[in-house]
């Protein structure tokens, strides 16, 4: 077995080919390599990732650490954050160092962004493949369920369900958003599978006696998943924006957790007098969301030769 079949299978799907050959992914990589926006996005995201994983590199304080109410709402000494002073970014309404809070506020939104997208992507790939491949009754039922969830405005659904939940941790929020997020991706996946289902190489595989699962996983999935993946990448940024909105409305994460959304929520009443409380976290948040969008855009352009 093994070697010759492996080579044959690889040649059929064209998925694992690497090196100098002109496969879809190596072509895409060559295209990406030249894009400035791609590298800008990657650098920003690496920085945010570092903030999220090792916050101690950037601040010696813990989350909500050494807050002093007598030091509340200290404006930053100057708009140049490298100007020195004990609180280069000022302090928040509880007298916590704003820079430290922003550093610790990175982790929650990024985890939520990836978890929600992961849950939605898993559901979309599973349900979309099944409904696109088998068609008939299963497709009808799954598509109607998708329609129902699609008809529910996302923000409304999230607010109602999150209010019902007794706990408001990162996991709860991700779970609820993930449950509401899958319909768009599922439709995309279903459409992809539908367009590939009757391709010649799929017919060939079926005639060679491949089982349904093998056809789905080895032949259809690698060729159908690229646009869904790109959408998911763009989506991480959108989820992070939504997470902040839910925090702002007061139904997302709650106090002992630190997140950009909560900081913005705190700033809302007094931002006319203390604009820095709104501006700093908003800049961090926007930069992160923007990087995910740019990354997704760049990858999509690279993968889709039609748009070149």
């Amino acid at each position, binding site marked *: 077995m093994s070697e010759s079949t492996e080579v044959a299978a690889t040649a059929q799907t064209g998925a694992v080919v690497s090196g100098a050959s002109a496969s879809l992914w190596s072509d895409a990589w060559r295209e990406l390599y030249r894009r400035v926006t791609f590298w800008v996005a990657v650098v920003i995201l690496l920085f945010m990732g570092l903030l999220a994983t090792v916050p101690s590199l950037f601040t010696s304080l813990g989350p909500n650490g050494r807050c002093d109410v007598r030091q509340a709402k200290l404006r930053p000494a100057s708009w140049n954050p490298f100007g020195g002073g004990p609180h280069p970014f000022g302090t928040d309404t509880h007298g916590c160092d704003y820079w430290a809070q922003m550093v610790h506020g990175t982790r929650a939104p990024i985890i939520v962004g990836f978890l929600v997208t992961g849950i939605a992507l898993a559901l979309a790939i599973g349900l979309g493949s099944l409904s696109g491949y088998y068609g008939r009754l299963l497709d009808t039922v799954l598509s*109607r*369920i998708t*329609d*129902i*969830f*699609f*008809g*529910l*405005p*996302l*923000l*409304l*659904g999230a*607010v*109602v*369900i999150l*209010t*019902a939940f*007794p706990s408001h941790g990162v996991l709860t929020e991700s779970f609820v958003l993930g449950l509401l997020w899958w319909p768009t991706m599922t439709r995309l996946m279903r459409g992809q599978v539908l367009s590939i289902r009757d391709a010649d190489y799929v017919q060939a595989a079926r005639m060679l006696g491949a089982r349904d699962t093998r056809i789905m996983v080895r032949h259809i999935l690698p060729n159908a998943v690229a646009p869904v993946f790109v959408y998911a990448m763009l989506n991480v*940024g*959108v989820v992070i*924006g939504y997470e*902040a*909105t839910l925090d*702002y*409305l007061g139904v997302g994460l709650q106090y002992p957790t630190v997140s950009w959304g909560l900081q*913005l929520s705190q700033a*809302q009443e007094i*931002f*006319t007098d203390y*604009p820095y409380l*709104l501006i700093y976290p*908003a800049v961090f*948040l*926007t930069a992160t*969301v*923007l990087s995910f*969008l*740019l990354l997704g*855009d760049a990858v999509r352009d690279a993968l889709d030769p*039609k*748009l070149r």
Partner: protein
Amino acid sequence: MVPVLIGTTLLIYLAVFALPGDPIRTLGGDKPMPPAVYQALRHHYHLDEPLIVQYGQYLWGLLHGDFGETLNGQPVSDVMKTDWAVTARLAVTAWIFELVVGIGLGVWAGRRKGGVVDTLVLSGTTLVIAIPVFVLAYSAQLLFGLKLGWFPTAGTDDGWPYSYLLPGIVLGSASLAYIARLTRTSLVENFRADYVRTAVAKGLSRRRVLVRHTLRNSLVPVITYLGVDLGSLMAGTIVIEGIFNLPGIGGQIFTAIQIKDGPTVVGIATLLVLVYLFANLVVDILYGVLDPRIRYE
């Protein structure tokens, strides 16, 4: 359409009535309620029956145009009637704004792919999508309302459209960005089609090729998005109405969720879903107008 309406309302119904806490006890305030009154109220709101029976009764009432009663004893339809107009005006303002400016920007950018305008529109729209809507709302309020004084900052005193302009623009901004990008991409793709080459070869003017041949075909995905978007605009008012202090159903439903006023939440949510479904129906009909190949037998 009907299954979607039933499914979606059922979903919201289940979620709302799974909210922890007893709304009837909350009604009594601090004092404990006499058991007889408590039972009577529970019976009045059908809370003593199984959830699915309650839902059946609710749907039956809905069919007769009865949205039920809030926990203050007011008919939900009365609550909606007063606030509905505000939200409808806000959403329609946002919708018109994103339709006109979004398609306009998309066409402007798509006419010359890779040009200065194209690059500017693409980067500008990406930035708008990346800023959370409430941050945009506060910034716009501060800049255009307080500092420059171009628009009223809150309330509806100046009537439509003036009071609704700034909130509407903010509400529609993210969708505007999507529409501009969608129009642009669709236009760029269609410019390469054979029928466009034919039209140019026939010697038609640039304008006619753009408007009558390319744009008409490019608008199909944009119209789809516009239809779906009306529903999310309605939901987006939850955030915007609070910031600009507009007395609409977005603010109403948010308060209702917090005080566990189930009938109001489900009533308003049902209305939003109805709007969404109606917009989709209109879109389906519009497809046929835009693309004669699509026929409804």
